[in-house]
């Protein structure tokens, strides 16, 4: 096992993620006083201490350096401080013990965590003997294991990003294991969740483990993975409860549950690591970008054909007053969600739908108060096709022909006029 160094606070990337709220500091101090003074557990340990604690750094008979620091700094305030050395280092019981000692197996006590880790992508890599694969100690430390609630712990929420980033922003690791690009991981820093964590304002904001799991990290294709399309709404819904409840009943939510995997989940509109506030002009869900975001699926001919969705929704919107006004910066103009709802999108045929003829007045009335009592308006997205909008189709045809013929007549007349003048001039009138 490669030695593990706790991240020092001097390194820029790391220190930014330390949680600095006075409340948490206070609680940590109180907790320190409440804890019993750390003490090594048993007499058994005394034997270990005789070699591993003290000034004598050299063993006898030309042996290598005896590890000292692990005993000194590691165990005193660790969660394992009351556990005897040989409980973990079982092969150290007969002295002199063999060197190096075997890797510590945590599964004996941490059965559930070990089982989950074993199923995870990390566990699989570990079993393969991948030298980059993390073990328990990679994340939790060796001797200096602190509870996740301790702000000095590597797995404390405020420090977690540093921990995961250690491997996942490493270009070498990324390349050899074909992991997502480090830029994508770093983008989290600027996401709405990342900022909350970074500024120490909200330790509960979604972190790596909240969406990917901690011990049971699975690939997105695994149906049990938190990042599998079908599970994303529940994952986000753990914090965004109300929005999840709206989404759940929407046509998108229902379709996803029915296994229609093209149906959008939270991340399709909001992004994942790049997720920003709705007010951010770069966000897919920013008021001016909503139509283009919806169009990613609703203009996708494969999806339209597969689920028999109405076509031309985007182009007809863009050609409408709302679409044009929005395009040129009037962000008060309606976009898709203004009429169809944001998370609770329902088909027009359903009584609850915001675009049901019975409810359309109320929907339009949000912006056009005079229309709040209006009933069915008729077709909103007008394609001017023969089958759907006969009047529009014929008026357009009429004008195109009329203008065409009239212009041909004008040009003919002007040509004739010019011809007449030339001819008369030639013949001297």
């Amino acid at each position, binding site marked *: 096992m490669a030695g593990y160094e706790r991240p020092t606070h001097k390194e820029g990337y790391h220190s930014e993620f330390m949680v600095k709220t006075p409340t948490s500091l206070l609680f940590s101090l109180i907790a320190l006083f409440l804890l019993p003074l750390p003490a090594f557990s048993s007499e058994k340990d005394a034997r270990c201490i005789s070699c591993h604690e003290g000034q004598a750094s050299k063993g006898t008979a030309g042996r290598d350096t005896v590890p000292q620091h692990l005993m000194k700094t590691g165990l005193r305030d660790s969660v394992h401080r009351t556990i005897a050395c040989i409980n973990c280092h079982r092969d150290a019981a007969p002295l002199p013990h063999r060197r190096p000692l075997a890797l510590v197996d945590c599964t004996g006590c941490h059965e559930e965590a070990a089982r989950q880790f074993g199923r995870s992508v990390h566990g699989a890599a570990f079993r393969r003997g991948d030298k980059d694969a993390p073990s328990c100690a990679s994340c939790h430390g060796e001797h200096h294991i602190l509870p996740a609630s301790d702000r000095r712990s590597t797995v404390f929420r405020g420090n977690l990003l540093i921990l995961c980033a250690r491997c996942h922003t490493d270009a070498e690791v990324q390349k050899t294991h074909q992991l997502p690009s480090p830029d994508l991981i770093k983008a989290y820093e600027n996401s709405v969740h990342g900022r909350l964590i970074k500024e120490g304002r909200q330790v509960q904001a979604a972190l790596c483990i909240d969406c990917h799991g901690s011990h049971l990290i699975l690939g997105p294709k695994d149906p049990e993975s938190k990042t599998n399309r079908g599970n994303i709404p529940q994952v986000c819904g753990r914090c965004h409860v109300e929005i999840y409840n709206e989404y759940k009943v929407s046509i998108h939510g229902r379709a996803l549950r029915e296994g229609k995997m093209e149906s959008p989940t939270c991340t399709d509109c909001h992004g994942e690591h790049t997720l920003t506030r709705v007010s951010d002009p770069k966000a897919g869900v920013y008021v001016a970008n909503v139509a283009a975001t919806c169009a990613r699926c609703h203009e996708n001919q494969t999806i339209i054909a597969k689920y028999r969705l109405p076509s031309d929704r985007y182009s007809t919107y863009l050609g409408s007053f709302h679409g*044009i006004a929005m395009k040129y910066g*009037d962000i008060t103009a309606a976009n898709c969600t203004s009429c169809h709802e944001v998370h609770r999108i329902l088909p027009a045929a359903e009584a609850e739908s915001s675009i049901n003829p019975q409810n359309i007045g109320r929907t339009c009335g949000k912006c056009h108060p005079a229309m709040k009592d209006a009933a069915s308006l008729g*077709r909103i997205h*007008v394609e001017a096709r023969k089958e759907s909008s006969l*009047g529009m189709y014929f*008026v357009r045809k009429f004008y195109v022909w009329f203008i065409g013929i009239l212009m041909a007549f004008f040009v003919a007349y002007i040509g004739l006029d010019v011809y007449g*003048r030339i001819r008369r001039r030639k013949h001297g009138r």
Partner: protein
Amino acid sequence: MADETDYVQRFTRGERAVHVLLFCSLIILSITGLTLKYHESWLAQWIIKLEGGVLFRGKIHRLAAVVLIATFAYHLLSIVFTRRGHEFFQQMIFGRKDLSDFVELIKHNLGVRKEMPLFDRFTCIEKFQYWAAGLAVILLGLSGFMLWFETLFMMVFPKWLIDLNHLVHSFEATLGFLVLVVWHLYNVHLNPQVFPMSRSWLTGKISKEEMRRDHPLEYERLYGNDKG
């Protein structure tokens, strides 16, 4: 410069002022309207920026529309309440002669017929321009008001009528714009006889010589059959 008596007053000062307001408003309406219709082209987007964005563009468009409607109203009032306006309108009405004049004109240009048809105060070409413009202003004005107060009209008319109205406004405006650009521009600017332009919109006058050539019946009515 020819003697003052060599000229005939064709347009009054008021009529000339209205004409200036009319074409200024039409130019502004065309620019602001066409940029909206063809908003996807880079040229339109550049003009929209010049116009101060798509919302301010709309305000300019409606202001120009009010000016246009005012000139139209002025003209209507002059027809109803002034003798001159009344006569103007009566002489604008199409008659059977206009059709035969037009046929004769074409024959003349083709060289089939030696003589030009004899026109009165307004030629068949001018009458066509007048009525086309008048009808276009009525249609565009009405459909424009429906677009301006869309919410109000949405309460009264079904949505398909509003959509149709939108389409009519857009196409009718394109038609009007093309009529002005192709027809009017040729007849009063590019026509070799008047190039670079007929100055009567500024001076209000045409020479007796021009009148005798282009409007012989009117000339005869005013001055008898003498040769000026």
